[in-house]
């Protein structure tokens, strides 16, 4: 292996990996990102949870157990990572609303409230209490969204159904990107003569231009409009992923898709290169530093065996929450599942503890003790640790 191809190789195209990547690229480093598939961010609501334990998320962070990776970054870094994220999303035409000082709600498809912190501008007008009266629009044949769940919970809500000759979130979002469709839809909507103060949609208002489509509907109907996140295929999750990815690439980052890592070349304490199987000639990429941002179980970073848990790329030591019996609570909804703590324990510079490697840094969902569901820190934790890891990498390369 001669020539060093890259300064940094990032494994994983999720929120953490793309955040770290964008920062490093902006600082002038030569960065490649490799991905086996697309990240679980695509399945998410697109909302950024920072910490749901307190109304003030940054205050909530102090309620977290000592081992939580949030404690490895300062409040200032969390704030900076959020500011940076908001800036980049504005540049990508997919702005977010909210600040790390206070949490807010989005209305779920079941009519309940979900606590989060930053929301896409298309969800900014979501009700924060029971007072707002809503009119919900749904689409005939759409299996993944039932407004009756919401109207059963909220007295002041009603709904209408539009036939958009598409019955999936993806098909509908594609239709909304077409001006002729939007125009036809708007004139139907106007004729409904909606009396309620706000109009709610399942999150299908376009893919590339959701923010402007929402705005257009608001201007035409002269009332507030907001989206309700759906189960996957989740358009807001995909918009978030697309925006992060396009931003990374716009800044000069290189992405290798179809690149599952099958092997690692190493000498002493240094990882030299990662290789991918490919049918014949093995392909390898080398770099000075590797960032592991491969996610947890669904993302493919970790695999649970019968009685242990393994990390799939570097075979790093994994924190396993005791015997298998402790992995899952008998009450499904309790959020006290031990498995949420599984992951990689890192030192203050985000290097894996008890591992031999000095040029590997870890961030995002694969970290140990995150308990993302319990602590309501999905995406926020990925942004903050991704941001911090970029700084650690720069320190190391220098």
């Amino acid at each position, binding site marked *: 292996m*001669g*020539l060093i*191809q890259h300064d940094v190789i990032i494994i994983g195209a999720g929120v953490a990996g793309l955040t770290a990547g964008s920062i490093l690229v902006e600082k002038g480093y030569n960065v*490649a990102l490799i991905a*086996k*598939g*697309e*990240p*679980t961010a*695509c*399945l998410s609501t697109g909302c950024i949870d920072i910490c749901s334990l307190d109304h003030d998320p940054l205050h909530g962070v102090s309620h977290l157990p000592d081992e939580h990776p949030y404690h490895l970054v300062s409040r200032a870094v969390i704030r900076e990572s959020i500011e940076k994220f908001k800036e980049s999303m504005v540049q990508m035409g997919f702005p977010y609303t909210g600040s790390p000082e206070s949490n807010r709600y989005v209305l779920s498809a079941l009519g309940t409230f979900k606590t989060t912190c930053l929301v896409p501008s298309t969800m900014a007008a979501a009700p924060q209490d029971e007072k707002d009266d809503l009119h919900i629009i749904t689409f005939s044949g759409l299996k993944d969204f039932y407004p009756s769940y919401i109207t059963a919970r909220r007295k002041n809500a009603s709904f209408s159904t539009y036939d958009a*000759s*598409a*019955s*999936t979130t*993806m*098909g509908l979002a*594609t239709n909304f*990107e077409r001006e002729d469709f939007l125009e036809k839809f708007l004139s139907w909507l106007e004729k409904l003569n909606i009396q309620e103060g706000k109009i709610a949609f399942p999150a299908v208002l376009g893919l*590339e231009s959701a923010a402007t489509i929402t705005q257009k509907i608001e201007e035409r109907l002269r009332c507030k409009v907001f989206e309700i996140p759906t189960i*996957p*295929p989740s358009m807001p999750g*995909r918009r978030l992923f*697309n925006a992060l990815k396009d931003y990374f*690439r716009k800044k000069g980052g*290189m*992405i*290798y*898709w*179809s*690149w*599952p890592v099958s092997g690692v070349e190493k000498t002493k304490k240094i990882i030299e290169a990662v290789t*991918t199987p*490919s*049918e*014949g*000639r093995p*392909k390898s990429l080398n770099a000075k530093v590797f960032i592991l941002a491969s*996610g947890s179980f*669904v*993302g*493919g970073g970790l695999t649970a065996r019968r009685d242990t848990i393994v990390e799939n790329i570097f075979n790093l030591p994994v924190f396993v929450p005791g015997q298998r019996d402790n992995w899952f609570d008998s009450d499904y909804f309790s959020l006290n599942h031990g498995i949420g703590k599984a992951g990689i324990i890192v030192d203050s510079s985000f290097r894996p503890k008890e591992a031999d490697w000095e040029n590997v840094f870890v961030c995002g969902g694969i970290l140990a003790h995150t308990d993302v569901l319990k602590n309501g820190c999905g995406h926020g934790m990925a942004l903050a640790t991704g941001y911090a890891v970029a700084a650690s990498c720069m320190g190391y390369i220098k």
Partner: protein
Amino acid sequence: MINFEHCIRCTICVENCPVFRVNADFPGPKQAGPDAQRFRMEKEKSVDKWVLLCSQCKRCNMACPCGVYPAEIILQAQQRYGLQHPRTLAHLLFANNYYLSALGSLTAPVANKVASTKIGKKIFHAMGITTYIPFPKFSFKTMKNEKKKKSKAVKKVAFFYGCFINFYRPDIGRKIIRLLESFNVDVVLPEQWCCGLPALGNGNLAIARYFAQKNAASLSNYIDAGYDVVYTCTSCGLCLLHDYPGILEISLAKKITENTYDLHEYIIGLIDDGYIEPQFTKVKRKIAYHIPCHLRALGIGYPAAKIMAMIPGLEYEIFDDTCCGLNGSYGFKKTNEETAVQLGTRAVSLIKKTGAENIMADCGSCRMQLGGLSGMDALDPAEIICESLGITEGK
């Protein structure tokens, strides 16, 4: 390869399926792939005609976080369906695209004229072939009559130029030869046939295997003599590297895959090895680089983009989220016309928003579609490299 049980039904593949976006008749890669697979019984006749709506862009394979390859599951289902049901004329013709094109080239002056007339179009329509973009013009002079230059170069390339270059754009093929020669590379044109992909795409495993075996035998001889195989069409490349060892089960496949390179990947390799130091001169163009789905699927990154970054003055933006919709012969079939046009129009509208002057794509079929629908010039990356280095097809 067929591990449909690993599917966790997350639907990321569905989000990535271009056909699913615009054609409600296609249930998407999750249902057509892993979901339906458990109902496909060995002894029962296949009933899932909708598998034919899959364009084999492979985007679902690339998106899956769980290592399921929906496109491969569907590809097998397509072959099974093709075998068990009478084939339409269009499917038969496109599976044999190689012979069709060879005939077209032999009679190019007449064939091109007929194809552009009203009657010609009517004949196409009657055969189930669309004409929303003009059928590509056959070239009378194919690659086969190229004379070989004598060379003592250390680096030796057997050029797999593919049907599109051979029958429609041999001028690009000749430029690529001149380009490689200018890098002090010995270029030969091995005896070659259609890679087999069109036959696979039209559910005709037997024809695909027939072509693949012939190619593998021919290329293998060159590899034994110290040649690297270089392809320029990314779909040919994917077929050689992915389908020869995969569904086509070609015995010489391992040798082929170990020694076969994308043209731009090969050039980058020459630069990295210090074999060449090309002096790129200014090219003043603003380009939308449409990444062919099959380049993405190759898992080699975007090597042409790396070269573009070395060319002074060249502005380019990468588009890899949009499928052009044509997918080789897929979009030329009347049954898929609407899907192809909708996807192509969407890709073009995103490109036009950027104010790009030209489109660039590694794949001839993407260029045909995007160029045809946009009215813009659609170029091969090799053409831009040649422009920057002052290389023409003549010398």
